[in-house]
């Protein structure tokens, strides 16, 4: 009689707090749960009654990793409510700033959080001894992303200059030119990252699900477009509630979502599956070298999709900087005219599609807010993946099962603090 009991309290190397529970006896699963135990933050309640210009500043604090995503979604929702169409210059700067966050967040996950699993250690710290060049490269890439964001918005964590209507301060062209060279070098570092990951063995586990991401006919969508689903096609942003269908699960975790099936996936792999044709050439090449081709149904390949996107955003940033250097930057009038109304903002946060939905009164004071967070949309899919994966690995030693399940959770790069609304869990 074989018993398997895996109980990982607070999975490490993920953002926020979540547990894995597995109890099996004689090859039969008795209990298998992905549980989220983050404290409720109640952001929607905090937004209420705030003047519009404070709202993106507060929204940023939902998450320390994807603060630019929350700030951008928040600004877009507010602009939509007020009927503001940002200038071309603002959109270029926003995309450049956004690229910095995608790069920073992906590098953090690929090289600091996921890589130790593949290299058989418990954190990045022992790698300082064994793989010093990789650690130094990881810190270099992270610092570059940080400095790029700093140049556009004053700071990476909790950006300052990006505001409703535009930018409170414009970057210096000379500094943009200077960082361009570092971005060129980053492409070389990312080649090294591709090489490193090519040599690692990825668990072979495929489970098809519904994939949802923003889609924009003009470009690989991060901060524009409509809602695309591999099952249901394209829907306007105004339909986001029908796509996400949030529901509470009292016995266990955070708010869950589902659309056409039991669950769906958002994030780098969902974006890749939906928008891969719009990747820039160098990113397409990286995908090929990593053996990533669409459609890919292996959640462990999320990390590979993140590497591909890292290449894409660096190349896109080089293109944007060239455009800015050619056209110059002009001081613009950022005056905002408030009006009563509702607006929806949607972006692809590093971990997937993110919605902010605000209603303002005619003084520009927020009266109602709703935020739907990528990680909450993935919780249900993580659960379904575990249910698919565990029967395949149940004969393995308990430690290996635990490790594979932790790797699965980490592959999703969950960002649980973001789960602006999440539940308390009671243990048996």
């Amino acid at each position, binding site marked *: 009689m074989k018993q398997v009991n895996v109980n990982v309290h607070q999975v490490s190397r993920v953002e926020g707090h979540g547990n894995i529970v597995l109890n099996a006896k004689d090859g039969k699963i008795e209990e298998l749960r992905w549980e989220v135990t983050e404290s409720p933050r*109640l*952001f929607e*309640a905090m937004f*209420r009654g705030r003047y519009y210009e404070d709202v993106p500043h507060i929204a940023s*604090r939902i998450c320390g990793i994807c603060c630019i995503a929350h700030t951008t979604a928040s600004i877009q929702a507010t602009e939509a409510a007020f009927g503001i169409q940002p200038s071309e210059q603002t959109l270029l700067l926003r995309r450049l700033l956004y690229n910095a966050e995608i790069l920073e967040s992906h590098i953090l996950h690929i090289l600091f959080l996921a890589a130790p699993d593949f290299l058989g250690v418990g954190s990045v710290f022992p790698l300082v001894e064994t793989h010093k060049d990789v650690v130094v490269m990881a810190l270099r890439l992270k610092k570059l992303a940080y400095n790029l964001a700093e140049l556009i918005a*004053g700071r990476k964590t909790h950006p*300052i200059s990006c505001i409703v209507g535009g930018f409170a301060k414009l970057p210096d062209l000379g500094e943009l030119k200077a960082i361009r060279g570092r971005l060129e070098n980053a492409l070389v570092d990312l080649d090294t990252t591709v090489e490193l990951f090519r040599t690692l063995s990825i668990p072979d586990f495929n489970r098809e699900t519904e994939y949802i991401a923003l889609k924009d006919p003009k470009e690989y969508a991060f901060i524009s477009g409509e809602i695309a689903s591999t099952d249901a096609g394209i829907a306007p942003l105004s339909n986001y509630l029908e796509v996400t269908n949030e529901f509470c699960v009292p016995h266990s975790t955070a708010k869950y979502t589902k659309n056409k099936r039991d669950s769906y996936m958002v994030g780098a792999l969902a974006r890749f599956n939906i928008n891969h044709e719009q990747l820039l050439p160098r990113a397409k090449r990286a995908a090929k070298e990593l053996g990533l081709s669409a459609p890919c149904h292996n959640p462990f390949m999320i990390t590979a999709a993140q590497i591909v996107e890292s290449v894409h955003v660096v190349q896109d940033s080089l293109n944007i900087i060239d455009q800015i250097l050619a056209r110059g930057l002009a001081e613009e009038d950022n005056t905002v005219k408030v009006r009563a109304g509702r607006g929806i903002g949607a972006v692809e946060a590093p971990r997937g599609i993110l919605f902010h939905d605000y209603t303002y009164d005619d003084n520009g004071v927020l009266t109602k807010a709703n935020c739907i967070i990528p990680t909450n949309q993935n919780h249900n899919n993580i659960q379904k993946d575990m249910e698919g994966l565990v029967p395949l690995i149940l004969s393995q030693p308990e430690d290996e099962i635990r490790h594979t399940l932790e790797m699965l959770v980490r592959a999703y790069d969950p960002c649980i603090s973001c789960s*602006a609304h999440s539940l308390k869990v009671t243990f048996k």
Partner: protein
Amino acid sequence: MKPKVAFFDFTGCEGCQLDALNLEGEELLDLLNAVDIVNFREVKTEREDSYDIAFVEGSITRESEIPRLQKIRNQAKVVVALGACACIGGINCLKNHLPMEDALRIVYGEDAKYYDTIPARPADAVIPVDYYVRGCPPTTAELLKVIKALLLGKKPDIPSYPVCVECKMAGNVCVFERGMTCLGPVIRAGCGAICVTSGRHCWGCRGLVEDPNVDSEKDILQKYGLTVEQVVEKFKIFNTYAEVTK
């Protein structure tokens, strides 16, 4: 023996911990030569129950977090509050304006009964705190400065004057001159006035200076035709806890 350093997160965005990783290659190597990082769940799997210096991030927003924080206090020789949430309660306290039941209902509707939450508070509302690394987020430079001072057994030298001093040094045009409200005159410096330098105003994330010159702030407001209410609204974003407990 190298001192053992532990990082613990309570309720917050975890941005402070992440920024702590924002070191240059050599800085990280130097740091790891000087200390043993024994607890850092965000980036590290192994955990230890024995440590000398504990960095505590986030505010306290659940009953269950209180005994956890007390245990850390009993274990550590030095407790450092890291970031605005731990130092002054921070943004999480915005929900304290509402009765908890109402705040929960706004977010969760009918399912509000499943949630455990208490009014948010800073670490030192629960335990004695030895040092503060302020800001939302704190700067990596200040964090390193505090670690270095602790290793040398010295008191970290953190400014106690208001943001206006650094803002003048940065050569910024005064925010009031630009027709906006600013908290700079009463908020602790140490950030280099980064928000004003980046085109905005001071939001107050480092908390009040020890003896804020409130009359002088009122004079400034009057001079520029602004009201106390406007400033208080801005002040609440990070300092609701100080405002409510006063």
